[in-house]
């Protein structure tokens, strides 16, 4: 036990913490859950306490938004202490059935959605999609993401993207259907062993392909590849960066106007963690007719939608207002007709909140590619 907890203190640099409280001060879930991340950083130093801490329900409330890490003056990642505690539970096997099934599905089928690997490319049906081949160089190599591939609600993102790529005639290809989950949520759920395996296997697989850059569509893949995969040979970008370039080069032709008031919601994994704030905004502003408004909490301070940190598979015990509800209410107060996002999880959580609040008539939640599909001549 003692060597293990030594590792815990060292692994998360717990001695570096000065208990300043910047982390808790920014943690968005404190308004609805008992989570006090500063206390965990403090208490986890005591090896005797680790088991007890790991059993506290609030370690599963963290959404891995990374606000605490962004704010910590000592460069610590407080949330990773919570992930370390989650790992202890995962190793014991006593996790929620939803978490168990998602993790097992990643191991067996390469996606957390319990879908068959053989159906990963079904979204391509009826589309003319270029498929990458190992060793054949391509400029833009696309990684679809499990959620975009399987969830019918967000498949529009990738379908529209394919149509747009075909129209512009740029050199691109998608990975074939043996592509596997990047492990973003495996990491935050605390399945360390599985995540290590994914990093190793995916690095080997992705490096078989040669590209000027690998284009990710979900911010979760984007950040995970950039942060946790040190040996990838192709540079990783987010698709909004590519679209921003195409617009600057005049490669997109608009087929009309979108006279709407749009507010852009910064996904945590794209903004805070990926540093991509301007490209999505430039894309939206370039759409004829669009009036772009801003949330008060935006960019690094953007309010988390609670879709990350494995929360797609962990139900919060709190009955207090969900952050996604707060976000949608804020958008309503701004008079926004469209809440634009660039992340499949944000689409799902924010749209759910919008429906819950009964705003369907006057508002919509849309992925940027969804809007482009309607306004670009494809």
């Amino acid at each position, binding site marked *: 036990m003692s060597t293990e907890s030594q590792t815990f203190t060292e692994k998360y640099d717990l001695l570096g913490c000065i208990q300043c409280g910047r982390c808790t001060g920014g943690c968005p879930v404190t308004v609805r859950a008992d989570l006090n991340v500063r206390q965990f950083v403090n208490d986890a130093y005591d090896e005797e306490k680790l088991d007890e801490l790991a059993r506290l329900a609030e370690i599963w409330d963290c959404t891995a938004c990374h606000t605490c890490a962004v704010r910590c003056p000592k460069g610590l990642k407080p949330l990773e202490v919570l992930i370390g505690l989650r790992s202890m539970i995962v190793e014991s096997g006593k996790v929620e059935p939803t978490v168990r099934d998602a*993790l097992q*599905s990643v191991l067996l*089928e390469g996606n957390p959605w319990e879908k068959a690997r*053989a159906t990963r490319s079904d979204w391509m049906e009826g589309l003319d999609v270029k498929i990458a081949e190992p060793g054949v160089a391509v400029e833009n190599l696309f990684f679809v993401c499990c959620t975009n591939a399987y969830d019918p609600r967000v498949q529009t993102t990738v379908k529209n993207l394919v149509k747009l790529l075909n129209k512009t005639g740029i050199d691109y290809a998608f990975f074939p259907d043996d592509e596997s989950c990047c492990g973003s949520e495996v990491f935050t759920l605390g399945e360390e062993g599985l995540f290590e395996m994914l990093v190793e296997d995916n690095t080997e697989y992705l490096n078989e392909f040669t590209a000027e850059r690998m284009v990710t569509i979900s911010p979760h893949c984007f950040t995970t590849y950039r942060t946790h995969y040190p040996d990838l040979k192709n540079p990783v970008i987010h698709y909004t960066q590519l679209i921003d370039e195409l617009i600057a080069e005049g490669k997109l032709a608009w087929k009309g106007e979108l006279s709407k008031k749009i507010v852009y919601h910064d996904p945590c994994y794209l903004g805070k963690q990926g540093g991509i704030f301007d490209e999505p905004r430039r894309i939206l502003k370039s759409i004829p007719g669009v009036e772009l408004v801003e949330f008060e909490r935006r960019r690094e301070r953007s309010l988390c939608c609670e879709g990350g940190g494995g929360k797609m598979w962990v139900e919060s015990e709190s009955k207090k207002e969900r952050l996604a509800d707060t976000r949608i209410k804020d958008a309503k107060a701004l008079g926004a007709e469209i809440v634009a996002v660039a992340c499949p999880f944000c689409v799902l959580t924010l749209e759910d909140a919008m429906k819950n609040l009964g705003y369907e008539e006057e508002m919509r939640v849309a992925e940027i590619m969804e809007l482009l599909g309607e306004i670009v001549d494809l």
Partner: protein
Amino acid sequence: MKTFVCIKYVPDTSEAEVKVNPDGVTVDSSRFSFDINDADNYAVEESVLIKEDKGGEVTVVSIGPKQSDVMIRMAMAKGCDKALRVEDERIADHDPLMVARVLAGAIKGQEFDLVFTGCWADDDGHMSTGVALAEYLGVNHASMVKKVEILDGKVKAHRELEGGLMEVVELELPAVLTIQTGINEPRYAPIRGIRQAQKKELNVAGLDDLGIDPAEVGSDASQVIVENLYIPEVESTAEFIEGEPEEKAEKLASILVKGGLV
């Protein structure tokens, strides 16, 4: 406690479309994901819980292809001690009685207190393997078990009956219990556990290794012949009956009479 737990590797047919092969008697499984049969997963958990409580040893038995080894390793990661996988093309595995005979042949001659199976398999849904296995082993059985209590030389089994009734029975050990889903909460098999389970013993055997006569478990011995598989036609004739309750009742009655249903 010495326990055997019998598990099956089954396709998940809930997501991909089910298609019958041109031979008309088998299903195209190329687009399915495969995993442990749901009820068997609960049987594994129950066997491990009992081992954790009373001590002893759990052996996994499964009939299936090499690909199912991952499922067996997961069961071992959860706490099962060793495993036997039977692989032999000659087994008429569409017939639960033949399957039960093979399982019995694999277990017979070894000491055991309990044998667990799932109460039914998600692919063919016969609900017969466990019960037939008890018969071939010549021991007691209880089916659809929702709670297990180990007593001295006996086991108390709570059986879920039709209409939600619970029947509590006491059986002399050794016994076979077919486990109903919901009896416990199956744990997760972490990857590190699966890696460690690589060190545990997993034997692969054919009928000859087990001393089972292929003629007794093959299609000639089986009384089940699959003649034809087909996807049921979806009938889309639904009629909404409008009107006041009395009118509705009258219209409904006349439809039933005309259709020869009453």
